């Protein structure tokens, strides 16, 4: 299992029956692959559909139905088209149960930075600021380090996406829960020690007793 699959499978475990879930483009979008169709979960594509489905059969792609990255998708039975005002109304209004986003940095306050590297890369925040401010549960899905440098840091040096504390950070090394007291190390990846996690993290991690290994359900 590669790092991305590990992260996606672990995040998928957080998704409960009947939830409305927004998946960011890139790594987070892989999470849908590990959520059984019969769980009644609706995925929202912020560009305009509730009930995002897998890529359509070959030759049946239609430019009027894409995900937020512009890739061809399908819609599940019971899907609804929404315009951008409704889409973000659902996000800001507390109707979105969970969002899964990528991250550049997460810090000890649980703050996320994921939209700008000053002077280098300014993609823009897209929907991220609304998603982090408004979703009932915010999960950051990212590699634990970038080119060896820790992404979980004492305090974000990059511009913040929001001042809301994210709820969970899932990486290829660990599951970390930001809390008012700091970052709690909840789980470690299979074959990874607590020491390994701490070495790849420049933030202080709170460790209370034995830290269990991620239990990944078999894929269906």
């Amino acid at each position, binding site marked *: 299992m590669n790092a991305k699959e590990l992260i996606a499978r672990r995040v998928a475990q957080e998704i409960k029956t009947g939830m409305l879930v927004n998946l960011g483009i890139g790594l987070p979008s892989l999470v849908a692959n590990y959520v059984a169709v019969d769980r009644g979960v609706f995925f929202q594509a912020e*560009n305009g559909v509730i009930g995002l489905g897998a890529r359509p059969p070959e030759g049946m792609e239609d430019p009027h139905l894409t995900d937020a990255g512009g890739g061809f998708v399908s819609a599940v039975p019971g899907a609804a088209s929404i315009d951008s005002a409704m889409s973000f109304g659902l996000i800001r209004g507390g109707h979105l149960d969970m969002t899964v986003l990528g991250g550049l940095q997460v810090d000890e306050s649980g703050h996320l930075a994921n939209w700008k590297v000053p002077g280098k890369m300014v993609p*823009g925040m*897209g929907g991220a600021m609304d998603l982090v401010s408004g979703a009932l549960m915010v999960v950051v899905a990212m590699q634990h380090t970038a080119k060896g440098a820790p992404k979980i840091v004492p305090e974000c040096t990059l511009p913040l996406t929001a001042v809301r504390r994210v709820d969970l950070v899932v990486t290829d090394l660990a599951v970390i829960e930001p809390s008012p007291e700091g970052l709690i190390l909840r789980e470690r990846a299979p074959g990874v020690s607590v020491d390994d996690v701490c070495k790849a993290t420049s933030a202080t991690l709170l460790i209370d007793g034995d830290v269990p290994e991620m239990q990944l359900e078999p894929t269906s």
Partner: protein
Amino acid sequence: MKGAISPAAAAELIDDGSSLLIGGFMGVGTPERLIDALVASGKSNLTVIANDTAMPGRGIGKLITAGLVSRVIASHIGLNPETQSGMISGEIDVELVPQGTLVERIRAAGMGLGGVLTATGIGTEVEEGKQTIEIDGQLFLVETPIKADFALISAWQADYVGNLSYLLTAHNFNPIMALAGKTVIAEPGSIVPVGVITPDAVKTPGVLVDHLLVRAS
């Protein structure tokens, strides 16, 4: 509505220096033929207000490549390196706005509100230079309306009186922008007789639409 016009005739309506609301999301639901006509007419110094600037060769990306755009208000420019380099070199003035805030600011202009209050952006760079207000102990940004000289809209169907319907994720910003342009030009996939779009299927009432583009030949 006095009959549909050609893309070239539509482009003629738009002066250099105009502000344009342009529908679409990464090029999906964008009025491509209108954009091609703008590129062909060589308009300059345009302000583009849109979710994003798509990518080079597609939708708004063509306006960027052609150098017609001096100002962009968008939520995301990450897939268009030309917009990013234009921003860094200073050739394009780019204002980044959170997507949910962007659509509400456009809606506020179109629906005659003085603005909306949102918590999105509080404590971030987005807050800079903006008024804040406290409501029941919570802090909100005062986000002001964004209107434009023109709204360039992509629709699925139009009828003879300009009623519009949209398809799936090609709705995006289009129905909201149709409210906020001083002049609204819509590029429909097809133009059908009155009654084909039922009253309940109309997403943009024809009274909002000033011009329809003729069907693509």
